């Protein structure tokens, strides 16, 4: 089955290279097919390895396959190796599966763009990177994939590179992720320092046995913090969340794939993967949960006032990932992963549905200019509805199962858990509001003037199909995928992940029930509120100027970071240039030279050209020399 995994990993890379090298020799459409095909192959590979694992019982579902020694220094080595175990296979399935649908969708969505080939190459590259991330057999390769997905997300966000905003968003995303990479790298240095290796099982064993002093509070906490830094950067959690909304400058499928389904959830995967370390540093783990809770509230609030259809969904992504962090932070790994999966389905669905809307409206994204699309594009309306309900967590849609189990888990974690639990419920309420707001604004009411003049229906050609089919597929998934695990009754995912990540919490049935009911109720309440405000328009939206502005400025995080980091570094650079580089570094040499020349000039003037001067020089030096000799002798 490792073979399947290798195929899964490499075929997207092959696709990317093929498209790059082929260049203009192949048509844009072919490029699309190539990339889709390669991802499909990857999915196939994932399935084979999944089946392969199914054939084994719990303990033997852990296979490492090394291709060659990738990096070695001193006695340290790490190979180019992949790890096939339940967790990675699950991620492989999600990534390649959802990836396949979205790439297929792109064929239609990106149709007619000048640089489609580049786009599909990038997409394939991203899928490869994501698979590298989840399959990487050691920390180093994990970090490699980590950086690669950051890179490809940079490339894709900035895909329309004439747009300054796109480039800016791309840069922002990359730099913030680079910060995360840096903290992770530092954590790895610590690991190397203490263990001399970066392969998962060695490190985990050492941590669990607690020898070599790594488990002392300081190093282990620092390591966990470093990892957490990477996780929050990648998953757009507090305090490194600001890049995600700007990332919406990229094409919509990109947002669906990278900034909803796969990459942004890598943080969750990381925590689950390295849960041993986090469990050794419980404080940090709780911090992760706390950050998750904070983010889900923050994002939910901001989402209330966003007017860009994609940004609303982006913020909802942030808050949903907040749930996942909450879950895994409390040790409910299976639940976190479960929500990751369902979220991948319904969030990708939402994005692609939004994509259809945007596509139909010639790239318009402002929801205030939309409305009444229900009649014009009923299927999209349905899809969006499914996605929305799943997002809010209404029974029986997938969100319900995964999200509520996380809340239940929170209840089983002492007072701290309860705090988070409350936050989660509040989040559910907010989710209801903003999702429904978006829904009503876009689809209900009468078609706005803008819509009437710009709307055009997709035709039933390849484009239409490639746009429609994936959405349909995802809608189905979003609707039913939740049934895979129904928390107290049956939990295959938990058992599947048992060997990799033993959950720390096991909520009782009543906790499940309570939180489920409350969550659904609150979600419904949120929808109701939204209906009052936007659907039926019986109430006017309450105006709280300050709150409004705060939310619209996203709690001034961008401004804060600008003032704290960006501007100072610019100013320092300028200052160095003006006060150090030019005067000291360049000046010094020049002045020294001038001084020396001046001395030379002096000597030149002593050379009067007069005989007597020369004779005098001789006579006096003779006198001195002789005197010295006679005295010293």
């Amino acid at each position, binding site marked *: 089955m490792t073979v399947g995994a290798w195929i899964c990993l490499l075929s997207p890379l092959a696709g990317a290279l093929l498209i790059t090298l082929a260049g203009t020799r192949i048509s844009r459409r072919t490029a699309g097919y190539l990339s889709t095909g390669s991802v499909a192959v990857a999915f196939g590979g994932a399935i084979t390895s999944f089946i392969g694992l199914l054939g084994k019982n719990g303990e033997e579902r852990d296979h490492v396959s090394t291709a060659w020694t990738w990096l070695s220094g001193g006695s340290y080595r790490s190979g180019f190796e992949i790890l096939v175990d339940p967790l990675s296979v699950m991620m492989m399935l999600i990534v390649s599966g959802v990836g396949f649908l979205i790439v297929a969708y792109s064929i239609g969505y990106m149709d007619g763009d000048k640089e489609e080939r580049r786009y599909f190459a990038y997409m394939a590259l991203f899928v490869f990177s994501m698979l590298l991330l989840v399959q990487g057999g050691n920390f180093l390769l994990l970090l490699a994939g980590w950086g690669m997905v950051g890179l490809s997300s940079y490339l894709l966000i900035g895909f329309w590179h004439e747009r300054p905003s796109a480039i800016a968003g791309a840069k922002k995303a990359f730099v913030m992720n680079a910060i995360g990479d840096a903290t992770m790298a530092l954590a790895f240095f610590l690991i190397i320092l203490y263990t001399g290796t970066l392969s998962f099982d060695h490190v985990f064993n050492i941590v669990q046995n607690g020898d070599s002093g790594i488990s002392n509070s300081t190093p282990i906490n620092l390591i966990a913090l470093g990892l957490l830094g990477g996780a929050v950067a990648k998953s757009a959690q507090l305090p490194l969340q600001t890049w995600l909304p700007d990332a919406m400058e990229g094409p919509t499928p990109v947002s669906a794939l990278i900034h909803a389904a796969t990459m942004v959830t890598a943080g969750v995967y990381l925590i689950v993967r390295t849960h041993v370390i986090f469990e050794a540093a419980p404080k940090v783990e709780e911090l992760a949960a706390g950050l998750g809770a904070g983010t889900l509230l923050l994002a939910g609030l901001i989402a209330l006032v966003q007017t860009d259809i994609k940004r609303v969904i982006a913020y909802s992504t942030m808050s949903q990932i907040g749930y996942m962090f909450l879950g895994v932070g409390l040790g409910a790994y299976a639940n976190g992963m479960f929500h990751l999966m369902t979220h991948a389905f319904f969030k990708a669905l939402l994005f692609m549905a939004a994509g259809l809307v945007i596509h139909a409206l010639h790239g318009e994204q402002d929801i205030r200019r939309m409305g009444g699309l229900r009649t014009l594009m009923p299927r999209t309306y349905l899809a969006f509805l499914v996605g929305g309900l799943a997002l809010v967590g209404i029974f029986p849609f997938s969100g319900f199962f995964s999200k509520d189990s996380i809340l239940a888990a929170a209840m089983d974690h002492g007072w701290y858990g309860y705090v988070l639990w409350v936050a989660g419920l509040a989040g559910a309420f907010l989710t209801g509001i903003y999702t429904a707001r978006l829904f009503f604004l876009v689809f209900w009411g009468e078609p706005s003037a803008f819509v009437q003049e710009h709307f055009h229906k997709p035709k039933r050609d390849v484009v239409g199909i490639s746009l429609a089919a994936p959405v349909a597929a995802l809608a189905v998934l979003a609707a039913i995928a939740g049934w895979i695990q129904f928390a107290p009754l049956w939990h295959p995912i938990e058992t599947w992940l048992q060997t990799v990540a033993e959950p720390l919490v096991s909520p009782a049935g009543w906790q499940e029930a309570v939180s489920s009911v409350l969550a659904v109720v609150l979600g419904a309440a949120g929808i109701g509120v939204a209906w009052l405000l936007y659907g039926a328009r019986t109430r006017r939206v309450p105006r709280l100027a300050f709150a409004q502005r705060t939310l619209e400025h996203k709690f001034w995080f961008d401004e804060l970071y600008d003032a704290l980091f960006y501007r100072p570094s610019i100013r320092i650079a300028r200052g160095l240039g003006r006060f150090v580089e030019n005067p000291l570094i360049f000046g010094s040499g020049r002045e020294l030279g001038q001084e020396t020349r001046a001395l030379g000039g002096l000597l030149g003037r002593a050379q*009067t050209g007069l005989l*007597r*001067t020369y004779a*005098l020089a001789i*006579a*006096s030096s003779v*006198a001195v020399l*002789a005197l010295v000799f*006679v005295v010293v002798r």
Partner: protein
Amino acid sequence: MIVATVGNVLVWAVWVGAGFACLASAVAVVSFRNPFYSALALIGNLGSLAVLYLLLSSDFVAAAQVLVYAGAVMVMFLFVIAYVGPRMDTPWAGGPGWQSVAAVLAGAALLVEIIVVIGLKAGGRLAHSAAVGDAFGSPRDIGRLFLTDHLLAFEITSIVLLIAAIGGVILGAHSRQPADEVPSL
């Protein structure tokens, strides 16, 4: 005994005379404004030096001094001075003042140092010199030295003189052709 003392006094007297003549003429040479007089003073200087040489019982050198130097060389000097004309226009001395001062200082320093050094020795070995026979400094003696120990020196001297002659010809002679023609060396 008495003869000795008398002779001693006599020699002293001659020495004093010659010595002072020598010094005075030297000062005169460097201080006269007119080179002509300086040249004449130098002749006097050379003469008095010859006397000192005699006192140092080096007769041949004294003779050479008078003949070669005071005779030939100075005559040439006078000729040139006459040829050039008694250029009065050159100022006595000049250049920046501090240089003159420094010059005087340097010269004085040299002088004093040498005399001090000699004084240092005078107490010691310089006091009594080796006794020499009549042959010392005689032409025969000199000739022998010239032909034995210092054969080469003798030869070189002649070479130097020859070269000087050539130089005199080259520099002093009238140019043999009009200046416009430009051959390359």
